[in-house]
């Protein structure tokens, strides 16, 4: 367990020493979410209608921006070899990297979403549901993304392949995440959507570290 904590801490320290990587994805989210209301104009009904989709797609793309780097630096400098040879299970260590990725590129989006949602004239309840859906949904993005990042590690043009591989798998999270906010706005209640999101997190949390670890071992063999 100390290795898990050490890796999470190390990734956070590294991110704070090289802030631009974190700031890029957060800034991207803020800019996308801020440009749409300006482009659409002050049509409150339209804004409310498109808000969940835009905020969710923005969060999804922002979290994907940093996926390519998830294992690339550890692979390049040999840390990944040391992790693979560790007596701790590689899945555990990969889990630590996924958690660090979420803390750096998922959590900031969750915290910013309610503020950005104000521009779309969302009600307080809808803002709460938006935040909650992102809180449940962004870990899914990091977990699924980790498998994609591990599979495309060391492949030339891996970043393009990564998006092709991962974006279709993001669809369920997007549908239920944006759907939750839409259901709340239309008065249906969001609990069903949020339950599905929660189920997605649990399934991904079980399978993703294991699948990522297996793909990393394959990447290291060559």
């Amino acid at each position, binding site marked *: 367990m*100390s*290795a898990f*904590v*050490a*890796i999470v801490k*190390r990734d956070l*320290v*590294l991110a704070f*020493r*090289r802030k631009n990587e974190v700031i890029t994805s957060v800034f991207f989210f803020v800019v996308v979410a801020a440009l749409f209301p300006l482009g659409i104009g002050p049509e409150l009904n339209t804004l409310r209608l498109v808000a969940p989709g835009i905020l969710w797609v923005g969060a999804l793309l922002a979290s994907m921006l940093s996926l390519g780097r998830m294992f690339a*630096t550890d692979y*390049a*400098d*040999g*840390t990944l*070899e*040391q*992790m*693979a*040879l*560790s*007596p*701790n299970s590689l899945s555990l*260590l990969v889990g630590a990297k996924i958690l660090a990725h979420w803390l750096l590129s998922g959590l900031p989006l969750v915290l910013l979403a309610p503020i950005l949602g104000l521009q779309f004239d969302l009600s307080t309840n809808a803002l709460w549901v938006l935040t909650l859906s992102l809180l449940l949904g962004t870990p899914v993005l990091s977990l699924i993304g980790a498998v994609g990042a591990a599979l495309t590690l060391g492949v030339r043009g891996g970043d393009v392949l990564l998006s092709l591989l991962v974006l279709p798998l993001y669809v369920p999270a997007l549908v239920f995440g944006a759907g939750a906010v839409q259901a709340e706005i239309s008065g249906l209640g969001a609990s069903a959507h949020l339950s599905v999101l929660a189920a997605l997190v649990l399934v991904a949390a079980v399978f993703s570290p294991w699948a990522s670890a297996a793909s990393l071992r394959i990447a*290291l*063999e060559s």
Partner: protein
Amino acid sequence: MHLEGGNGVGKTSLLRILCGLSALEQGAITWKNQSVAQNPDDFRLDVAYLGHQLALKEDLSPLENLRVSAAISGQQLPSAEALAALSQLGLRGREHLPVRVLSQGQKRRAALARLIISKAKFWILDEPFVALDLAAQQVLSGVLNTHLNNQGMVLLTSHQTVALQGDGRSYRLSA
């Protein structure tokens, strides 16, 4: 054990297969009479591998790097021990500098500090003497000899002659 051989005959590949990074096509690797493929965890506890890649983070200091790699290899590392290992390799006063400002040789020293703190019995070292100055080479030989005297095992590749104590064997790999 000293593994010799010209460039490209497969020394590094052999070491990577032995420590389990690359897959084996034929045969089996056993450790303490148990197949490594079936029982990798016991083997990994006993093995320390240092390859061409140093596994150092450029933005972290040698001390932080050492702490993280100790944690990854499942070891507790008191600060005093970490500092002693770094000063033994002549990195005293540089333990808080980011690794990216260190020279090539100093980076290798920072990576070798991992061996001093390592509790593993079997060290697999790929060209450990590369880029080290004479003083550091002597320190490293001393570290290896201490390890051998403590019933440890070392398997290394090197293009230079290495004076090691104990039951030293040399193998030559040819294509």
